[in-house]
């Protein structure tokens, strides 16, 4: 599965969950500020990723998921897995659609195409 395919699948889920026009979603958009996602939306998205891409995400990992997503941000937030509440909030605010695509690509069972 290549980047384009992952993005297309992700857009479908986001369009339904966030009630936005699928074609208007771009990789550069911020999940929170541009697409108005909240913590429950992110939770729904993670569950959709688990099912759609057969990604293993143990429920305990979700708390680390944001820290892990931070690795894909252009400017590093915090170091390692231990992020403070303020840093986790910062990560959430800076998450882009493209960040999620990067995360999925790395986690695909067969590896990125």
């Amino acid at each position, binding site marked *: 599965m290549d980047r384009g395919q992952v993005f297309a699948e992700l857009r479908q889920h986001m369009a339904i969950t966030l009630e936005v026009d699928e074609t208007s979603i771009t990789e550069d958009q911020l999940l929170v500020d541009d697409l108005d996602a909240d913590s429950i939306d992110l939770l729904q998205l993670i569950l959709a990723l688990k099912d759609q891409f057969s990604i293993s995400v*143990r429920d305990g990992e979700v708390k680390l998921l944001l820290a892990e997503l931070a690795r894909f941000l252009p400017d590093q937030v915090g170091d390692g897995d231990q992020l403070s509440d303020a840093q986790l909030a910062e990560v959430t605010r800076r998450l882009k659609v493209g960040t999620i695509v990067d995360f999925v690509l790395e986690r695909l069972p067969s590896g990125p195409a």
Partner: protein
Amino acid sequence: MSSDVWVTGLGAVTSAGWTVDSAWDAVVHGRSCIGAVERFPIFDAATRVCGPVPGTGTAVGHDDVLAARFGIAALTEALGDAGLVPGDVDVLIAGNHGERRIPAGDESTVLVTPQQLVRRLADAAGADRSMAIYGACASGGLAIGTAMQLIRAGSADVVVAGGSDSMLRDYDFFQFCNLYAMSTRDCPAAEACCPFDARRDGFVLSEGAGFVVLESEGHARRRGAEPRAVLAGFGSSQNAYHIVASPPDAIGPSRAIAGSLRDAGVAPEAVGYINAHGTSTRDNDWCESLAVARVFGDAASSVPISSNKSVLGHAMAAAGAVEAVLSVRALETGVVPPTINLDEPDARCPLDYVPGTAREADLRYVMSNSFGFGGHNSTLLFRRP
């Protein structure tokens, strides 16, 4: 109505045992009641710990309604403690979530709805009137506050109020897993629940029941009953923020706290101990600390505040009622129970949480907080008679 509302009876079933004394003994000595989940298979769930009521273990029948067993036992203890019998009660008010379990065949998942459970409890109490109140984790506190209002209004003289819950069944346990709300820390079970600690990462699911008998002062005096405590104030508010998240400004919880003080006509400095909601979630514990600081001001740093949940776990709709019972015990004994597992302080939680060891104190007023999903906030203020 100028007479007081008295607490004349206490009853509780918790992860410590089937009596008030067992719960009080556990919290005062800081003896954790948390262990591994053994009641049903949990597969790869990252949450591996819980606080079951002793004697239930793995021997829970498929159609057993645990909340009914817990609730009937606790209200029976409370009535006996008050010197009353079933039929003496005007109203029973109880919070609960109903009870569910994963079905084996075509039967319903739902064992009882909240209304059906409360009717069973009302039958056991011999009460013609009942109210199934719901405010998520604030339900127990709201039940007791509502009972006080009925007595003040002259609608009732004797009200049994509290909560009874068992969400420690497979169905609801997995729902909480999917909310990522429970602790998944890799540590000994007894250490998992660590309210106000920097390592806290979610609540530990427990179960049980708590009931108080509230009585109008006039009715109690006429029958020669003595108060265990006076319910002096009740504050209640709504966050209007989010179904599960705590408000970043803590205004909702602080309204309830301030409201209880205003209702009782006392200043914050009069409060000798705050029995916290203290769930060990990242959200609640800093929000509650901020709310206390907002209302108590300079006095916030010197009022002890501790969480019974660090020992017993979170009994959901029963929690506020169990903690009300334990607040009265604190008033009676002059002992403030500790918060256990508080080893790494969190800069966002700067108050005196009574870490590790119980403490003696001259208590005139004890406050009990309960905050719930859906934005419900309840604060009860008890006074020593």
